[in-house]
């Protein structure tokens, strides 16, 4: 089983159509990876499916970087 970090990065690469090396932990989905509002909603939906969790809107808004997504998944699976 790959780590949470690897799984999140894989989803970001797939959803945003960006190169793997662009997806650093600090990369912002909107500012660095060119995501629009529809992309971010889809990204959250993909994270929900991958990690079998429901991310409430107010939490989803705070997930703007790869690191924040990883943190959210780790916190919610504890």
């Amino acid at each position, binding site marked *: 089983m790959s780590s949470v970090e690897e799984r999140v990065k894989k989803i970001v690469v797939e959803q945003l159509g960006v190169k793997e090396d662009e997806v650093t932990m600090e990369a912002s989905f909107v500012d660095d990876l060119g995501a*629009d509002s*529809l992309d971010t909603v*889809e990204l959250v*939906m993909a994270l929900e499916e991958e990690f079998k969790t429901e991310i409430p809107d107010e939490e989803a808004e705070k997930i703007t970087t790869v690191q924040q997504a990883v943190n959210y998944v780790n916190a919610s699976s504890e």
Partner: protein
Amino acid sequence: MESLSGQTALVTGASRGIGQAIALELGRQGATVLGTATAEAGVEAINATLREHAIDGRGYVLDVGQAESVNQLAGQLQADGHTPTILVNNAGITRDNLLMRMGDEEWLSVIETNLNSVYRLSKLVIRGMMKARAGRIINIASVVGLSGNAGQSNYAAAKAGMIGFTKSLAREVGPRGITVNAVAPGFIQTDMTDGLGDEQREALLGQTALGRLGQVEEIAGAVAFLAGPAASYITGETLNVNGGLYMA
């Protein structure tokens, strides 16, 4: 012509009238058809019609006005492995009355069944369409939503709401290759319009350029066009199919 082969069409209110004609036309063009009806008898009618015309698909029980019923349908579709690529929001009711005499139930039931249903069903299919980067949503509005009609403030509000919804969603999901359009039928011969009085009928026909009622197949043809490859660059549009009763 099998321009819709490989597609799966979800058509609400498919047991009779315009919905039945739409289901048949989409099926004739090669789509798998999932039709809904409020009661088991309607579902059996859908199954019988599809079988008779050798169309792949089946009927489902659905009350579009009930969130719980829509959730159940979502579960059933998933269990049966169906992901709609075409949604036709057709189910609708009328509860005509002058506003001064209209009760809450008449207002709310029309909004619930004709407008809130469009929100619910569109949400049901949109995730699959987003993933597929393709999809067609076609909302059956009404000429009344554009022209207005005395005694139908509830129905006209719901149908006009549907048109605004169509335009907004078209903008939202356009970047994902999904088109959202409406068809606004005029005076079509169905059980719904059979309920009109002779005087009302004469008045409406007098205003219709073609001087006759429309047939359900004439609506189905417009829907099939919007669902098919020929309409790939049309979105956010309301197609009037009304014999010239109203010209936007």
